[in-house]
């Protein structure tokens, strides 16, 4: 069928609706085949568990289509990579070439994400690019896994690969590849992954050329732009029905590793919606940090686009989407890293932007509102494994997700990361086979969820013992949210601070959420629970029966049911799950909390900290009732941080309490 009729919404399209729909789906299917190839042939456990993406770009490098299970953080950066290759090589791009790069300063997510870009030609003319991005578990630098928390510049982080040609007119440039492999810790995995990535770009090319054969190159090129126009139209149509205005949100990082001290580090966001255009302004965000969790502009932009899609899940992401979203980042801040600022751990900043977009849209579309989510933490372990000998290092790159925020209609859940909604949780039995560790615990942590009318999702408690086979093992931990604790919203309460306990030779240290290059001896244990999600709505309004169910399932302890929810539960027979609510006591307890809680956030912190030191109250009481933040290892009060956190709680929690 080839009808070209006037259509009020798509008058500029030359394609009939069927050809358009078939090609649009055909592009997605081509990219899906690429991802399938990577998933089925990759080598590293990291890539196997989902840290990779695939896409199709037009000949100008604009994003046309990405994979269904892509890592969300990659997607809105892949056009940057493609454009960087075009900028570098211009007319010097030939059939049979393939390019590789990881340059964060050109808008790639971070050094570990290796991009393979393949130009696609038809009858000698460049028509498109296929691209594969995969996170290599190590790309050199000071720390195994390349997350050197103490780095202030990229020279100590990783090997930087500006766009290079690794396949030249069909010939694999082995010497260059060898140079790259000589700079990574587990070259056998990286070689296998590189191969899988390259082959996947060929699969993408094959599938695209099949469409060209069938529909003709003109229609395919036309569809490249039509698909982008379609997404732009789609997004604008959705925005049209929402009010104009400007909204603000602020979230925090705990502290600067290179300049530790008291005081949360602000990341500010203002969103202006005018008609169908969105402008995000990050002015007011703190200066560049002396550590590796700075984000560059490309990462900040990707965070905003990915989190917008979480609100508009039905809209595909491509360059048409980007036309609707503008970003202003102030120079010299932690959201505008430029050469040579360290930025491997950009995700810590990225996730704060995601939570802010969520917070802003929660006000615009209350039916999809959500409190703050825990994102993920990274544990990177490398060294030697006596089971495989000294010839090769092992690496364990274990991200851990936590709970998502409570919704305006139901409890939070979802044990996936906000940054990479397609990252899989790694199987313990796979990890133990690959690294000299034994996992001591992997389960939900009771009381970790932020209380609310709808509570957050639970955090996950995970720990390891290093077995006798571990040798020269070095670990790095990248997280946040020990002080800028995952917050509640619309009256909901915070979850719990993140920490990490390292037990070595009978001594236990809380190393906190951020540390690099710590030696782990055989027999040491490491416990690193993730955070829960923040609560949504006043916990005193939670149905006592829902609290009772949580107590029966041990998501919530009897003690915290009383303190956080004012619900008094009695045990009749635990074996039979027979617990009951004491309705009278509950009424009294809720009234008492309601009366006192505003005052708790104003109370002088010092005497409360003393009660904590005497063991009368716990960490969760300090945070959820009093908004008090300590230096958790030493137990000393952080007055500035506490003042900031109380401000946050007054805005997000107390202001909604009746």
């Amino acid at each position, binding site marked *: *069928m080839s009808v070209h*009729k*006037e*259509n009020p919404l798509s008058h500029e399209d030359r394609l*009939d*609706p*069927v050809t*358009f*729909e*078939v090609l649009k789906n055909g592009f997605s*299917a081509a990219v*899906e085949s690429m991802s*399938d190839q990577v*998933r*089925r*042939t*990759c*080598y590293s*456990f990291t890539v*196997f568990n989902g840290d990779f993406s695939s896409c199709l770009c037009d000949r100008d490098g604009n994003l046309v289509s990405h994979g269904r299970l892509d890592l969300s953080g990659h997607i809105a950066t892949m056009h940057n990579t493609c454009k960087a290759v075009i900028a570098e090589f211009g007319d010097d791009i030939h059939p049979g070439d393939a390019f590789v790069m990881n340059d964060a300063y050109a808008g790639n997510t971070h050094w570990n994400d290796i991009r393979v870009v393949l130009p696609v030609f038809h009858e000698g003319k460049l028509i498109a690019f296929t691209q594969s991005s995969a996170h290599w578990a190590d790309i050199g630098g000071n720390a195994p896994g390349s997350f050197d928390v103490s780095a202030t510049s990229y020279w100590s982080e990783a090997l930087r690969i500006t766009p290079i040609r690794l396949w030249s007119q069909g010939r694999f440039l082995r010497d260059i590849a060898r140079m790259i492999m000589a700079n990574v810790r587990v070259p*056998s995995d990286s070689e*296998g992954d590189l*191969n899988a990535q390259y*082959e996947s770009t*060929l699969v993408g090319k094959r599938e695209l050329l099949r469409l060209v054969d069938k529909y003709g190159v003109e229609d395919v090129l036309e569809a490249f732009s039509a698909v982008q126009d*379609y*997404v732009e*139209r*789609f997004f604008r149509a*959705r925005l049209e029905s929402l009010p104009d205005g400007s909204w603000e949100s602020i979230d925090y990082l705990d502290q600067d590793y290179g300049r530790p001290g008291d005081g949360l580090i602000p990341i500010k966001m203002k969103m202006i919606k005018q008609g169908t255009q969105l402008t995000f302004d990050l002015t007011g965000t703190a200066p560049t940090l002396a550590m590796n969790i700075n984000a560059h502009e490309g990462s900040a932009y990707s965070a905003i686009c990915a989190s917008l899609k*979480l609100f508009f*899940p*039905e809209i595909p992401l491509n360059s048409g989407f980007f036309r609707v979203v503008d970003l202003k980042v102030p120079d010299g801040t932690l959201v505008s890293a430029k050469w040579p600022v360290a930025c491997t751990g950009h995700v810590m900043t990225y996730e704060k932007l995601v939570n802010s977009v*969520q917070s802003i849209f929660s006000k615009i579309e209350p039916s*999809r509102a959500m409190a703050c989510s825990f994102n993920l933490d990274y544990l990177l372990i490398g060294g030697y494994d006596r089971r495989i000998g000294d010839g090769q290092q092992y690496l364990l790159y274990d991200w851990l*997700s936590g709970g998502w925020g409570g*919704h305006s*209609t*139901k409890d939070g*859940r*979802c*044990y*996936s990361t906000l940054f990479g*909604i397609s*990252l*899989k*949780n790694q*199987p*313990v*039995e796979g990890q*133990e*086979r690959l690294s000299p560790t*034994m996992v001591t*615990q992997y*389960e*939900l942590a009771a009381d970790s969820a932020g209380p609310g009318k709808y509570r957050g999702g639970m955090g996950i408690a995970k720990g390891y013992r290093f077995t006798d086979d571990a040798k020269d093992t070095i670990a790095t931990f990248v997280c946040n949210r020990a002080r800028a604790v995952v917050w509640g919203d619309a009256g909901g309460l915070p979850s719990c601070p993140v920490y990490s306990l390292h037990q070595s030779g009978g001594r236990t240290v809380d190393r906190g959420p951020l540390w690099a290059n710590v030696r782990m001896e055989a027999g040491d244990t490491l416990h690193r629970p993730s955070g829960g999600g923040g609560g949504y709505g006043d916990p005193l309004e939670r149905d006592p029966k829902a609290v009772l169910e949580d107590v029966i*399932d*041990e998501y919530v302890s009897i003690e915290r049911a009383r303190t956080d929810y004012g619900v008094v539960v009695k045990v009749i027979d635990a*074996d039979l*799950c027979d617990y009951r609510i004491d309705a009278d006591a509950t009424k009294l307890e809720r009234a008492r909390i309601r009366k006192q809680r505003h005052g708790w956030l104003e109370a002088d912190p010092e005497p409360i900290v003393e009660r904590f030191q005497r063991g009368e109250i716990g960490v969760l009481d300090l945070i959820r009732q009093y908004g008090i933040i300590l230096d958790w290892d030493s137990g000393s009060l952080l007055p500035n941080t506490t003042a900031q956190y109380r401000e946050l709680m007054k805005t997000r929690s107390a202001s909604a309490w009746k």
Partner: protein
Amino acid sequence: MTKYRVAVDVGGSFTDLFFVNEETGEHMVSKVPSESDGLNAVLKGIQKAGIPVPAIRMLTIGMTVATNAIIERKFPRTAMVTTEGFRDVIEIGRGYKDDLWDTNYDLAMPYVARRDRLVVPERVAADGSVYTPLDTERARAIARIIKKRGIESVAVCFINSFKNPVHEQAMGLILQEELGSDALISLSSDVLPEIFEHERFSTTIANACVSPVIRTFVRRLTSDLKQEGLTGDILIFHSGGGVLTAASAERYGARTASSGIAAGAIAAARIAGNCGFQNCIGLDMGGTSADISITVDGQINSTTDWSIEFGYPIGFPSLEVLTIGAGGGSLAWIDAGGGLRNGPQSAGSNPGPAAYSKGNQQATNTDANLVLGRLGGELLGGDMSLDKSKAETAVQTTVATHFGLSATEAAQAVINIANGNMAQAVRTVSIGRGHDPRDFALVAFGGAGPLHGAAIARELDIPTVIIPPNPGVTSALGCLLVDLRHDLSAMILRRGDELDTGDLMSAFDKLRQEGAERLEREGIDPSHHRFEYSSDMRYLGQWRSITVPVDPENISIETVLADFHSGHEHEYNYRREEAPVEIFRINVVAIGVTPPFELALGEPDGSEPEFRRSRPVVFDGNREAIDTPIYQRTDLRAGHRLDGPAVIEQVDSTVLIPPGARGTVDRYLNLILAV
């Protein structure tokens, strides 16, 4: 007395039965409503066909009992005992959902609530050694708590038990002692002895949940039929494409979790085989969805990566069937970006398409087919009438006005998009796996498949379309065509260059012996045993493996490795001869061959097909309708030829033969179209 072979497909709405007279090969079909549990439907269906129960030699039954029990969560309260510290493996899952981007969308909760997931101190290390012995006192205390709660089915799921099952077995004994011999205990090391805890635990839990349901169903069915005089065997069709005895089905209930859709794939493969095609694609299109399967060299692709409810995988082999939301009732709609879409939302059978006049006003595929004249004004042989004017209005308002198209053009667009979606799915299972659709025949069945089959075949250059004689009850036929089948596997996890042929042979022998024992327990004479071997392999360091068939009579490590390299190249375009290969797992399928039967064949009598009437039908590529002859399927005889344009109507389906396509009726009364 005449003996019959009976196959039953218990579906959500209807139970289909297929009877074969073993002496003459003649067959008949019957269809009855499934009612509440499907149990009564079996007997009613047999009675409706007028066949005495004592005349049944063998009854095979495919069913959605387990599927529905899982979807509706209608199973008895079930407990799990797991390693201390790992209580929530199945709740944390893999952090994955089928709609990744929708923050409001969560996976359903696990089948076993946290309160019923009890932990015991014990730990087996990655190498299989015991790190922490099982705390037997605690184990017994837990067993007593479970008893106190009145729970009678328990999943035992310990970390690394696939390497060493000793703790799970000890726990199982304690549970059996405390709960009694009738309690159902599912050990993960027995149910699915494979690495990766979430997948293994999830499978074990699904098994623990549905086994009691299957047990009740099977025992009642057996006693009901015995009361009516049944002396023959009852066999249960399972997801892997074989049958289990009733006793095995009780123990491994989750093996039947995709029993229903797998039968269609088997039927497609067998029908294509009868027509001389070893490669076929099955397209089973009904009211709400289309199930697509692929058979290569007579083998149906199977997978261990599937689930009934997303996030809770069932690792038993299942015939791979790709289901997409494309059926007769699928709705056409315009998205916010102005794109024309089709499905996956469906008007179902109630209210159904606009033409059903039951309140839906949005156009469906059925409405579009009616507007184009491809469907007539009646369905079910006249039991149901369609309102063409309502269909036209729906297509006009839903689609035509928006794009400025005529109703005919709009209806064509709707159908083309549905066909495009199905073609895409066929592409995924064929081209996506390295198979060229031009080497395949398309078997189109289900109520709606025969209307769309030719167009999909043309889209993909598939040369032949086969339409079986009873498209609507084809799945039941599938249940009839299978043997007893046990899928056994063992983890190897060793490098190919560390193994010799002897190692490999003894590993296979061990599985073969276990399979033979199971078949003998089921009363299958060794002369009817057959074994298929395969090996799952990958380049050392890769995570996904591919399955390489192994010749049981000629095992050689060199051949196995060489076959892997070529298999990898075939599937993924490259090989790495220099890289070490890992044998991940070996598999043995133990088959108890059921006695074969042959369907009766028709003989060409030299007659010509005759049509009784004609109507205008719009075909692809035409703007105007063509006056098209309408045939009745019951009038078609072996040897008849009929060329497009033509429409064939039958009680359970409508066949569309487009201009240029040439049809012949074979001796099985299949209609074979050269498109």
